[in-house]
């Protein structure tokens, strides 16, 4: 669907729904917020021009129901749907349904989503674009014998990964040849149950790695990257803190990774905002393509703060047919930004979710502090959805100032009534290794003990 947008349906909730509504408002676009019954009295629902209840609280009956969302877009005459992140944002079938019904999906084409959603297909695209991928199988392994052959070629330990997977399910680390058969069987079984597809591929297992990702914007013709984000502070593959620039990239490595992400996106004629994720092996200095996320990401504000580019507005502009006016040489980063995800979780008890009522909310403020949050005093954190309450993003002229500012901001935030991860972040920000910029993806587990 061509032509500038007029009314955008926001098919999400929480802070990202508010983020999209804010972008629409700044562009002069009308907004329709769809919501479940649990979110009727939420800030994004009240912030939108129009709010439409689409179903019961459980996501499957509301935010994950493509017919309810596209139906709402048609009934309330929205000409576009912004999916946010999570929920239906990377479901090719949903993008397809939007297209069928004449609704602009704010994101890449369904075909690109499908291609990048399949890890093996995505690896093939990466290889074709000359992007390094982790040494491992070309695609899914046919059987134990093939898996063993590849494992011996690349050397143990190896990682077994579900082709359709994510979030650690269908994943196994194999350190010895004799364990391969058993663990392959387990991984295939888990993948079949979790994703309906038992396909497993094998790759080198790297231990001292950082998670580096490149933000891209494409309009189907031009593609630019907006530098990297370092998301190495994770717990069980869940990102907790993200920053830009990475404390470990030098100018040359930064250029090479950035150019590889652009090459990958050119390969598929990428349209909209996207993120190419890499692992950086700190032992060898090599980087490898991991996957591509064909949507806006939770941590996108980090890039916005160092570049000044509003990524969500660009998503909407591109969806409305505008061409990218940004050129690679015009994109400069300034200073350093860090994001802490404040979740309603008890970090002292395995980061267990803690829904409840936020009695009193006060955002941190002052220089260099951005807060993306749907919190307000008296609001409910329902038990049905993810536990992200607020993203605090701090900018500084350098990493040291950004970290000092984040400590200051986390000392200010008031979120009474629910347990939050603020204390975890304050502990992290005092840790000498983190302050020195030295950590890998196992830091939270191995060093902090979570």
């Amino acid at each position: 669907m061509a032509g500038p947008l007029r009314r955008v349906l926001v098919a999400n909730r929480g802070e990202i729904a508010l983020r999209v509504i804010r972008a629409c408002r700044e562009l002069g676009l009308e907004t329709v917020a769809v919501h479940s019954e649990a979110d009727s009295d939420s800030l994004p629902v009240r912030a939108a021009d129009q709010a439409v209840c689409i179903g019961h609280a459980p996501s499957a009956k509301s935010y994950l129901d493509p017919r309810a969302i596209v139906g709402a877009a048609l009934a309330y005459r929205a000409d576009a749907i912004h999916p946010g992140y999570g929920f239906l944002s990377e479901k090719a079938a949903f993008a397809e349904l939007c297209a069928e019904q004449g609704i602009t999906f704010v994101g890449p084409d369904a075909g690109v989503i499908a291609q990048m959603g399949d890890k093996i297909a995505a690896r093939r695209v990466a290889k074709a674009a000359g992007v390094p991928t982790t040494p491992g199988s070309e695609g899914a392994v046919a059987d134990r014998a093939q898996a063993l052959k590849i494992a011996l070629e690349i050397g143990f330990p190896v990682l077994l990964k579900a082709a359709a997977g994510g979030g650690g399910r269908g994943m196994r680390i194999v350190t010895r040849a004799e364990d391969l058969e058993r663990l392959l069987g387990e991984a295939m079984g888990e993948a079949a149950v979790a994703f309906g597809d038992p396909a497993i591929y094998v790759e080198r297992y790297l231990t001292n790695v950082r998670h580096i990702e490149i933000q891209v914007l494409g309009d189907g013709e031009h593609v630019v990257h907006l530098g990297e984000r370092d998301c190495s502070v994770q717990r069980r593959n869940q990102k907790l803190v993200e920053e830009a620039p990475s404390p470990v990239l030098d100018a040359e490595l930064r250029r090479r990774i950035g150019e590889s992400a652009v090459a990958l996106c050119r390969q598929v004629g990428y349209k909209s905002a996207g993120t190419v994720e890499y692992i950086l092996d700190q032992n060898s200095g090599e980087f490898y393509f991991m996957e591509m996320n064909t949507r806006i990401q939770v941590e996108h504000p980090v890039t916005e703060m160092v570049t000044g580019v509003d990524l969500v507005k660009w998503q909407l502009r591109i969806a409305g047919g505008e061409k990218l006016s940004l050129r690679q040489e015009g994109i400069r980063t300034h200073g350093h930004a860090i994001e802490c995800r404040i979740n309603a979780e008890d970090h002292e008890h395995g980061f267990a979710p803690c829904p409840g009522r936020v009695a009193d909310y006060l955002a941190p403020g002052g220089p260099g502090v951005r807060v993306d949050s749907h919190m307000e005093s008296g609001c409910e954190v329902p038990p049905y959805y993810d536990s992200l309450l607020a993203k605090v993003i701090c900018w500084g002229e350098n990493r040291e100032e950004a970290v000092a500012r984040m400590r200051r901001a986390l000392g200010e935030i008031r979120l009474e009534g629910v347990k939050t991860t603020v204390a975890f972040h304050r502990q992290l920000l005092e840790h000498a290794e983190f302050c020195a910029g030295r950590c890998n993806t196992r830091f939270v587990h191995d060093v902090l003990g979570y």
Partner: protein
Amino acid sequence: MSEPKLTQKDVQEILDLVESAAHVVDFSLKYGDVEVRVSRRDPAEGMQPAAASAVPASTVRPDVPAVPDAPAAPAKTATTGAAKAAGVPPGMVAIKAPMVGTFYRASAPGAAPFVEVGQKVTPDSVVCIIEVMKLMSSISAGVAGSVKEIRVADSEPVQFGQVLIVIEPDA
């Protein structure tokens, strides 16, 4: 700030509890000046209108899940679905949208409306249609009585849980 108040979500959770407990037929809760009463029967036994209650059981086709009403929560604004569902007088039965879509009063453009205000209906009477992506779902009265109000104009969009038609059940 943290003094407990009964919110819409609390009410929803209570109702979900009641709904999931098959043996519960009547339920009432008094909390401060809010009183919640729910009466329900096994759908297999046919629908029966709720007694005068702040929360009448929903009355929609047996094949779509009920959309329980909630007393107006201490909401900050009244633009939401639940708020629109409020305001059904005691003794009346609200027919609510089981899905988001477009409301039609007649089977085709130019055809006679299914019902008019004042008209008698039986539980099987089709009272309106909701269209989603060209798929038409006809909505039955679910109760015998007469049409008291039609709250949505023809071809208007409706959200999930929105009150479409109010029926005064036969005594």
